[in-house]
């Protein structure tokens, strides 16, 4: 089964970290939510799209040496939980860095990279990854 339709529907939040904000309590969400889990019914009609700044810091990370086939060319790669400046934790790769450069609390910013491709003839999927701020 092709992922093309699902990936296309989610492209703006994958490309630009577009989440949502509840204008009832101010909470922010990524991935986007239709309803605020705190305000529930009161948030209906008050949820709006929010493009994150792309900045945050490393909350936790691990170095992956045994990855899936699409990541073979990038092994070992750094997978991190990023505490975004807006609040939500986002999981993503940290690229263009040696694992020794990454520390808990390191400042990062978002970048756009290839995530995977559906073989040699399929669509190329792009999405957010993170790089260390210098």
């Amino acid at each position: 089964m092709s992922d093309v339709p699902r990936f296309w529907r989610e492209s703006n939040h994958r490309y630009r970290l577009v989440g949502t904000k509840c204008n009832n309590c101010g909470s922010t969400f990524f991935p986007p939510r239709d309803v605020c889990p705190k305000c529930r019914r009161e948030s209906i009609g008050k949820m709006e799209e929010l493009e994150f700044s792309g900045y945050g810091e490393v909350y936790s990370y691990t170095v992956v040496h045994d990855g899936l086939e699409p990541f073979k060319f990038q092994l070992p790669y750094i997978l991190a939980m990023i505490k975004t400046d807006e609040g939500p934790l986002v999981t993503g790769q940290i690229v263009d860095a040696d694992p020794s450069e990454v520390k808990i609390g390191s400042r990062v910013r978002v970048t756009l990279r290839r995530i995977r491709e559906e073989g040699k003839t399929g669509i190329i999927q792009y999405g957010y990854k993170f790089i260390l701020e210098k």
Partner: protein
Amino acid sequence: MASIVSYGSYIPRYRIKAEEIARIWGENPDNIKNGLMVYSKSVPAPDEDVLTISTEAARNAINRWGKENRKKIGAIYVGSESHPYAVKPTASILVESLGLDYNIMAADYEFACKAGTAAIQNVIGLVDSDMIEYGMAIGADTSQGAPGDALEYSASAGGTAFIIGKKGIADINKTYSFTTDTPDFWRREGEKYPSHGGRFTGEPAYFKHILTAAKKMMELMNTKPEDYDYAVFHQPNGKFPTRAAKMLGFKDSQIEEGLMTPYIGNTYSNSMMIGLSAILDKAEPGDRILAVAFGSGAGSDAFDITVNDSIKSFNRNSAPTVRKQLENPIWIDYAYYVKFRKKIIMRGD
């Protein structure tokens, strides 16, 4: 008059030295460094391509301009000879990755190393004719040289984006192009590596077109080399633009600021554009710039530019300068290089 409103560049962090490539092919690295004036080149990471590089360069341009302005962009054109898809535009993916308005003209351009400057010219035309208020032109490439070929020392990756409108930081006084049918460099559909006419790439191709376009521009503007604070020419290596500058009567001090290929390699559609970007990183009001691109096949696009007072209040620091991006590279060896550039034959290839 159309003017550069903002600009931004991107260079991949991975780099390889000429010595390392020479080591594998048993060549004398001094011949490359002294002969071609190429000391190192950028290498795109395995997950980078023209779309991701264009996105980074364009985001830098947008950040300097102010993110809130981006919906005013009415056209986006991307010049490259390494678009990720044969059919499916890079430009349309950029509309989404940059968060531009969907009411926008968009297309991909091809003309070897001058596809990006062809994009600039198209945006100038649309701005001057009031069809759009602002437009974006990008030149980006992840170029490949065949293993063991002289091009392998220089073929590299990078991108630059210009936002053009009526009132900007650097006025484009004039643009002029010179185009002839010249078979100096080509790549057939489906072929991985380009072919070139060897010595044919010098005199009848690069020099003829660059020199003609530069001379004609100075004739049209009634200028002399000493009227320019900076000059930047297409840079297939460090040697060609240095020699072209000398032949035209420019001094080394006029071309130094924009000469990037010795450090990052030939970034093809980005080559002259990133040189211009490096000049704008430094330029002051009143500075005059002559910029001439070259694309094999062949043609040259020349631009006469004057930096204006607005550059003083422009947010240059909202994005990394070209020279800042030269700092702190990750050096890789040839083995990593062939893995990153997918030159290893895998099962199923």
